[in-house]
């Protein structure tokens, strides 16, 4: 007995020693362990080569020698070292060290806790994060509470790299500003576009089958949501991919907390937002170019007939795919499309970039994309009726977060922090991030577009792993959305936005799963939003709302 006890203790001691020896290796920064090429944590030579070229081409300013040895902390949502948005921070860190002699820590925060962690840090003045890679809808709270600093004070300082603010799509550039000041650097440019299977939709065999079944040509351009619905219904439950099982028409993420409300936001914009009849058509008035609230009274518009018609359309679309998608999050919906089981989806740029990753996608070379479709029957609140248009009402969107860096008011190193922000915003580095799929950085600047609209070359994307045809379709859809659509949906970024979106998400789910009718769901949303507005203070919010959408009271 005693002997076996000795053996057991001996074994335990050996295990403890091994664990002690292994611990430092395990705790070590994994980028140091990974293969490095030219100071980049990658094993892919072409990636390091193109990144080095971007690094060389980027403006570097004149880093202040006083920064040497300093360290800043960057908070970002958790996606890992090769994950969306957080990945580039790891990728470029060693180069930042080379330039400045300083470094930065990366604090990854799970998405579900991101806002509470950041807001708590700012509210308490703890100052954990110098730079926050934030969601654009946080701005209302930032400005309301004076939590972040304007960065335009550094624009002319020779110490900092110069970046091209004119090249950013105006709709996204507005998200980095408040009033007359810039607060954010350039990074990600979110919008939802419609993705489809080019090989299927353009296949004459399927077009003939569609005509035979539906009695008219397939509306391959998919200019309206009615066209999309018809195509989704036609393909749903047919074995169009030849795997022996029925496949899906469309795939969506509609789970509560699964960001399904973003789908509705993009889909409903053309039903609700109509252009100003005078010049310019983008002018914001009480009835034109507004989506969220009446800009004079702060009354929610969320249960307007246009919104209800849009939700009825979403309901129909949700039945033209697997019913399981009512409980799907983002990843599941994307996986359904990327694994070749759905003809259509509408989502962010991630689908475009993920479709080029052979490890996750079987549709490389088969991707089609276009901007979000419109409707020929938008609702005119001024006239109190649905219009009958010959051409669809097309409304661009910047749905999503457009993740980008801001600097905390509590940062001890605001200048070093701005150096990082500006350097990452320079066109060569930002474009490299866009053209490299795994970064999750979506396109939105003129240097991301192909000629004649921009300066990018198809080769940039092919070097980043894209199929040339897919890149053309994907980038073209984004460029259409940001630069060719006549009007835009406003972005809601007043205080209380996430709370409003949370309850909206819940009621949309209730409508999708048949617990409430679309009208009931949106009426409840209206009541909840009215209460939230009252809680925050209607007058305060009205002023911020008017500022945020560019409305000037007459």
């Amino acid at each position, binding site marked *: 007995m005693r002997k076996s006890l000795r053996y057991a203790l001996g074994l335990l001691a050996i295990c403890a020693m091994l664990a002690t020896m292994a611990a430092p290796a395990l705790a070590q920064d994994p980028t140091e362990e990974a293969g490095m090429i030219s100071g980049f944590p990658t094993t892919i030579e072409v990636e390091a080569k193109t990144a080095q070229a971007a690094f060389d081409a980027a403006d570097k300013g004149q880093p202040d020698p006083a920064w040497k040895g300093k360290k800043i902390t960057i908070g970002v949502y958790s996606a890992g070292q090769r994950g969306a948005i957080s990945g580039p921070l790891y990728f470029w860190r060693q180069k930042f060290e080379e330039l400045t002699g300083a470094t930065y820590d990366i604090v990854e925060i799970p998405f579900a806790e991101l806002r509470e962690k950041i807001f708590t840090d700012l509210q308490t003045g703890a100052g954990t994060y110098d730079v926050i890679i934030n969601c654009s809808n946080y701005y209302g709270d930032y400005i309301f509470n004076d939590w972040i600093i304007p960065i335009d004070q550094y624009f002319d300082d020779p110490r900092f790299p110069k970046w091209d603010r004119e090249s950013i799509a105006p709709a996204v550039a507005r998200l980095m500003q408040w009033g007359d000041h810039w607060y954010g650097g350039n990074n990600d440019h979110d919008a939802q576009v419609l993705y489809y299977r080019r090989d299927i939709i353009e296949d004459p065999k399927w077009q003939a089958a569609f005509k035979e079944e539906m009695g008219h040509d397939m509306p391959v351009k998919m200019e309206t949501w009615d066209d999309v619905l018809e195509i989704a219904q036609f393909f749903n439950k047919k074995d169009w991919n030849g795997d022996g099982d029925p496949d899906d028409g469309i795939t969506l993420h509609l789970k*509560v907390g699964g960001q399904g409300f973003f789908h509705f936001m993009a889909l409903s914009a053309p039903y609700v937002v109509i252009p100003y009849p005078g010049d310019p058509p983008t002018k914001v008035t009480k009835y034109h170019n507004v989506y969220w609230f009446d800009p004079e009274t702060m009354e929610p518009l969320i249960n307007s007939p246009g919104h209800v018609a849009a939700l009825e359309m979403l309901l129909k679309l949700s039945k033209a795919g697997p019913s*399981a998608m009512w409980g799907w999050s983002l990843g599941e919906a994307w996986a359904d499309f990327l694994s070749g089981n759905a003809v259509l989806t509408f989502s962010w740029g991630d689908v475009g970039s993920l479709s080029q990753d052979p490890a996750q996608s079987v549709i490389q070379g088969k991707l089609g994309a276009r901007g979000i479709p419109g409707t020929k029957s938008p609702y005119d609140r001024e006239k109190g009726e649905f219009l009958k248009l010959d051409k669809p009402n097309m409304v661009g969107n910047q749905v999503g977060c457009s993740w980008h860096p801001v600097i905390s008011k509590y940062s001890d190193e605001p200048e070093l922090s701005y150096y990082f922000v500006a350097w990452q915003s320079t066109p060569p580095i930002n474009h490299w991030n866009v053209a490299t799929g795994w970064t999750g950085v979506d396109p939105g600047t003129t240097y991301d577009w192909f000629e004649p609209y921009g300066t990018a070359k198809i080769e940039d994307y092919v070097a980043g792993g894209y199929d040339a045809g897919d890149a053309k379709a994907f980038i073209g859809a984004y460029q259409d959305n940001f630069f060719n659509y006549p009007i835009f949906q406003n972005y809601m970024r007043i205080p209380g936005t*996430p*709370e409003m979106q949370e309850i909206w998400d819940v009621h949309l789910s209730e409508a999708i*799963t048949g617990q409430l009718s679309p009208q009931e769901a949106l009426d409840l949303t209206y009541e909840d939003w009215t209460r939230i507005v009252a*809680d925050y203070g209607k007058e305060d919010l009205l002023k911020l709302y008017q500022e945020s959408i560019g409305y000037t009271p007459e």
Partner: protein
Amino acid sequence: MPERSRVKYLFVLPGIIWVLLFTIFPLLYSLRLAFFQARLGKSETFIWLENFRRALFEDYRFWGSMGVTVFFVVCSVVCTVALGLALAILFNRPLRGQRFFRALFTTPLFTAPIALGYLGLTIFHEQVGAVNTVLQALGMAHPPAWFSAIWPARIAIVIVDIWQWTPFCFLVLLAGLQSLPDEVYEAAYLDTSSGWDIFRFITLPLLTPVLFTVTILRMVESFKMLDLPFSMTSGGPGLATQTYSFYIYLTGLRNFNAGYASALAYILLFVMIMISLSFFNRLRKIYE
């Protein structure tokens, strides 16, 4: 006072400070908050009982989440206690491999609920989950839509909760059974050979205090259920699986409405105290 007597207070002092700082202060501070309109970044306004009035008379989410919670509590407590009791009786006799199975049965108890939730998400996945794969293999053409329909979503959560908490009931009830005096059973076997009568008239009455304790502990735990709906359904579809604690979490930590969240938490505390008191009164009456 002799020095030796004074020293003992020094030893107790850290404990007192700990309790004051981390129990009493938060309790009193949150009670104060419950009477204020207190939102992150906004100045606090004293509003008397407005938060309580709004919760009880205006807030459909209050009653909805309370209803969902009561459903989970009833289903989960009844099933875990019944299954735990059945297993405890089964194991309260010599069995081959008893230790192995006892250890095996208790493993879910030591798993983080959030991890079990994500495991549940995998198992009940509507298209590729193990449960629906088995059901389809057994010939069910349309297996339940576990996460996109109201009742299947609720049942999936209850099943995972039962899976996690049955071992707890099993362990405590087994300990209770093993502490029952043998003499009573020996005397009872002289009068009857019916196992059911022995269980009904001997085991159950003697085990009542333990059963009460297990039930009350399970109820308190179930009322706090958050992790499983959070990880499995995010409270959906709609609000179908949003528990009361989940609602408090969203109100306080996601929407930063600290005043209202405090009021909601105090209502839960009041409900729990009432339930516990009625249980212990009942238990006292049984023994009186």
